[in-house]
């Protein structure tokens, strides 16, 4: 599936069919999945923050497809409208047909760092190992998920639901997430340093810079760095 890969970045597209069933409270499974995903929004951070190498990802429920039902406005449509002897059946065959899905689908679309070996299995294994409870919370309402109780079965299941991208565009970069987070941390800290160390004599500037480099440790990806998914400026930095 080469078109899912651009450099070291991977585009994972999953559509999992949701059972056409209802809970004891008479809520459809599709709405239950929707409610559970919605409840993730009220947690201090997304469960996906725990899954290594996730750049960005999203979940939604596809209930149905859209039908392009606007009456025709092309030259042919107008011509046919002007010709009263054209039967309706002919007129309608020019119009878009109406499509509806027979199942709702849980859609999971994810961009992650896959490395030079395009390691999808490794990513999904980490996902299962870190948030299997959350996975069961939503995928538990999907067809074919019964019996998925370990990482290998989860990988097999996800691959059955996977679609290949026809075009994947990386507008950012495909570095490992810890590289990206460290770089962002350095950008933030060095911007502050540059502003607060203006106009100093060279010896002081040099001493301050030495202290700065020791504090930010540019080559150390573990710490200090930004936490994945951190959105509060006062809690953003992970220290060793």
């Amino acid at each position, binding site marked *: 599936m080469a*078109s899912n890969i651009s450099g070291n*970045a991977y585009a994972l*597209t999953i*559509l*999992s*069919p949701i059972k056409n069933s209802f809970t004891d409270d008479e809520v459809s499974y599709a709405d239950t999945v929707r409610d559970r*995903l*919605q409840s*993730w*929004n*009220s*947690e201090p951070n997304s469960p996906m*923050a725990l899954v290594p190498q*996730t*750049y*960005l*990802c*999203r*979940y*939604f429920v596809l209930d149905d*497809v*859209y039908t*392009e039902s606007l009456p025709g406005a092309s030259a042919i449509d107008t011509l046919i409208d002007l010709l009263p002897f054209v039967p309706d059946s002919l007129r309608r065959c020019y119009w*878009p*047909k109406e*499509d509806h899905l*027979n*199942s709702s*689908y849980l*859609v999971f*679309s994810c961009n992650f760092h896959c490395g030079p070996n395009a390691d999808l299995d490794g990513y999904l294994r980490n996902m299962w190992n870190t948030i299997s409870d959350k996975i069961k919370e939503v995928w538990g309402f999907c*067809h*074919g998920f019964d019996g998925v109780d370990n990482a290998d079965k989860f990988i097999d299941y996800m691959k059955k639901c996977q*679609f290949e*991208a*026809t075009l*994947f*565009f*990386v*507008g950012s*970069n495909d570095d490992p*997430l810890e590289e*990206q*987070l460290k*770089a*962002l941390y*350095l*950008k*933030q800290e*060095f911007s502050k340093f*540059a502003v607060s160390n203006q106009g100093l004599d060279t*010896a002081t*500037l*040099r001493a301050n810079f030495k202290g700065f*480099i020791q504090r930010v440790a540019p080559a150390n990806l573990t710490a200090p760095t930004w936490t*994945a*998914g*951190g*959105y*509060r400026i006062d809690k953003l930095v992970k220290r060793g």
Partner: protein
Amino acid sequence: MSNIAGKAYAMNVITPIRSYLTWVNKLIFWAAVKVPGVLTGLVTLSLIHYARWVIIPKDKFPHLDPSQPKENLNYNYMLFFSNFNGSWDQYVDSFTFAIPGGLDLFWKWNIRYSKSVALTPFHDYIRYNQLETIHYYNAYPLAASNDVKSAKTVKSSLIQFEKDTQTVSDEEFLKLYNGLLRGLQHDLGDMYPTPIVTMSAYQVERRQKWHEGKLAEAGENHGK
């Protein structure tokens, strides 16, 4: 529902495409990747983190269980997923202004595609076919795509500068330091949260303030 995670917006668009013309679309996408320069216009849209197009054939929707009803569709479906910075209008308009021709090539064979020019019918088309995200996660909500790219430059420059200035004189250090700042002047800059990072983050903050009894102080105790 949350189409926004920090500075990123998640757009999902699904559009029907005639099955007998899908191969043309796939050929265009293939050429876009293989022929150098075709994606140049897309590259100029530096507000994009990641974007993708996926075509689902009408008979290829996953069927995983005998109890699951099979789909009976007339058309194939093209899904477009994008992660971008800025507002919906800015994004859609910048597509129109930067790569109107490319945009039309990608969507040309989709039913009732309005073309990217004029803007209003194109807005209507995208809005009509857009699906709302329920949960959206961003590993760096404070950073735009340009921040991620410039941060990489800052990191490598900083490491190189430290290496180069280990044994130089103070005078040389200052010269190189000024050169470093000059070289990075387009890459530096503080990042801060947007007024509301996400609706969920906003709710979490509100809840925390509520528990700490600070909502009343902040004048946000409506409905208390």
